[in-house]
């Protein structure tokens, strides 16, 4: 069974939100299918209590904290004692350090963090080597994202070598991104297809509020503009079968396709937009004139059109052409 740990809540110590927001963050993580939620001591103290649902890991600095803070599924730390419910963490920054794992093969569980450059250095052999050096250890891989390959490494680990990874929402703390790994698993191995990802926009909004940052418009799975379509060929396909240019239905992550009119739009896209805005659809010659005007305006502004701008162009060109409407 695959087990995904999200440790975003260990990265909020400098911007700790309210108790309610922390609980809401946990609830939304559980809803999208996170198996285990890891939290820092500071976040736990702010939360005051653990939610009733789900499994939680506490990140601790000292062994005695394990007895002090009870009720957690696991504890993570940077020391390598073989204590009950303890998942020690080791940082490996170079593939040549993998051999050193033999020294801690007594650990029942171990999180390996780092390995940023594994994609260039033969991830398959390195992952085999990790397994070989730790034959009796349950390994949780926490790849880091210096080279923008962390989600890919987490996926390869889950698909071929191990069952446990640690990631964080939006790739917080330089980790693989929770939402990317969840979506890749859903598409590749149909992992948890019944889980509700439609709460992702709410989770994104909460994350942005807590961290006082804006998620990139193009961020995979959660970016605000990733379902906008402009080019003629893609707009045409949208009308025939959206799956032609979509890896998954936007609705399943709480999004929706949006047709944008711009320099790359064709006649079909213009007709579709007119219909969407409940505007009259003129004959082809008028649409071609609209397209000329659209390209001119977009080049001048170096941008695409918003619906209001498009409607104004449609009205103006339509009026000039004497309303040659065919439907």
């Amino acid at each position, binding site marked *: 069974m695959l087990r995904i740990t999200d440790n975003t809540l260990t990265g909020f110590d400098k911007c700790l939100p309210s108790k309610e927001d922390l609980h809401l963050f946990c609830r939304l993580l559980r809803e999208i299918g996170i198996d285990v939620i890891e939290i820092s001591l500071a976040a736990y103290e702010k939360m005051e209590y653990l939610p009733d649902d789900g499994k939680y890991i506490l990140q601790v600095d000292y062994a005695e904290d394990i007895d002090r803070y009870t009720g957690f599924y696991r504890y993570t730390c940077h020391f390598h004692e073989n204590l009950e419910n303890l998942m020690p963490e080791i940082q490996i920054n170079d593939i040549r350090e993998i051999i050193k794992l033999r020294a801690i093969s007594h650990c029942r569980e171990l999180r390996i963090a780092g390995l940023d*450059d594994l994609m260039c250095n033969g991830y398959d052999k390195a992952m085999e080597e990790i397994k070989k050096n730790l034959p009796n250890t349950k390994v949780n891989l926490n790849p880091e994202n210096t080279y923008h390959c962390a989600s*890919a490494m987490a996926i390869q680990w889950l698909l071929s070598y191990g069952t446990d990874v640690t990631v964080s929402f939006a790739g917080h703390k330089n980790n693989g991104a929770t939402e990317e790994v969840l979506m890749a698993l859903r598409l590749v191995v149909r992992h948890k297809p019944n889980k509700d990802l439609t709460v992702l926009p709410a989770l994104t909004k909460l994350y942005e509020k807590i961290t006082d940052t804006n998620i990139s418009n*193009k961020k995979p*799975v959660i970016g605000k503009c*990733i379902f*906008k379509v*402009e080019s003629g060929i893609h707009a045409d396909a949208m009308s025939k079968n959206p799956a032609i240019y979509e890896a998954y239905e936007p609705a399943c992550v709480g999004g929706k396709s949006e047709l944008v009119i711009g*320099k790359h739009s064709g006649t079909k896209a213009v007709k579709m937009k007119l219909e969407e805005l409940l505007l009259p659809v003129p004959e082809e010659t008028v649409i071609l004139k609209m397209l000329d005007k659209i390209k001119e305006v977009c080049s001048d502004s*170096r941008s*695409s059109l918003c619906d209001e701008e498009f409607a104004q162009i449609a009205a103006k060109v339509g009026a000039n052409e004497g309303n040659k409407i065919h439907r």
Partner: protein
Amino acid sequence: MKEIKYIVDTTLRDGEQSPGIALRREDKLKIAKLLDNVGVYEIEAGIPCLGQSESDCIGEIVSCARNAKISVWSRMNVEDVKKSLVCKPHILHIGTPVSYIQIYSKLKKNKAWVQKNILDCVDISLSKGIDVTVGLEDASRSDIGFILSLIKELKKSGVKVIRLADTVGVLTPGRTKEIVETIKAHTDIEVEMHVHNDLGMAVANSIIGAKAGAAYVDCTLFGIGERTGNCNFYDFIHASEEIFQFAMTKKQVRELEAECYELLKGAM
């Protein structure tokens, strides 16, 4: 000795297709010149069939290029191919749907029709002395048997490079390796990786594709492009410069980004 890999920059084609930007003639010329100066092997300059001004602009880019090859994108359509050749590109890139969903649902045709049409299009371009790259669209969701049989016919007709397009961005590193290695094992065609970032794996898949034998990697400045974008030029160089030899350094790419930021920020 590091393996040499060639960057194909598609900022001016796939990148510009991203909603939010519309480059002017002077913008495209400026970006093309900067890409040429930095040592990009090939600049995909646009789609001539978009209109006369686009075609004229691409023609200017071709005449200004000093080192880079200038390619243009065309649909797999004889008329479009003829129009695309007017601006005299060094390379014609023909987008060729190969997945069943694209062939049967988008084109409403069949595999035999695709094969005949692409060979006709290739023939027109090569007869005019213009090299062709065939873009296997949606290759990541395609039947590898059809891809291999099509590549064999393309090779016979004179095509030297195919573009392996992960059109909807669903490849994983393992699957990328499998596809590229299979193509390299069964054919002697050159492979160009063209991946999208829908699952956040564009850089990883480009690295793995190149390691598996792809000589060319498609990138865009800032990773702009449809939906979540394409493979980010800087990130790819940064991630793989230890194992691959490129014509440019990551510092040069950063400087290039700084010069183009204002023109491209609308797509980010």
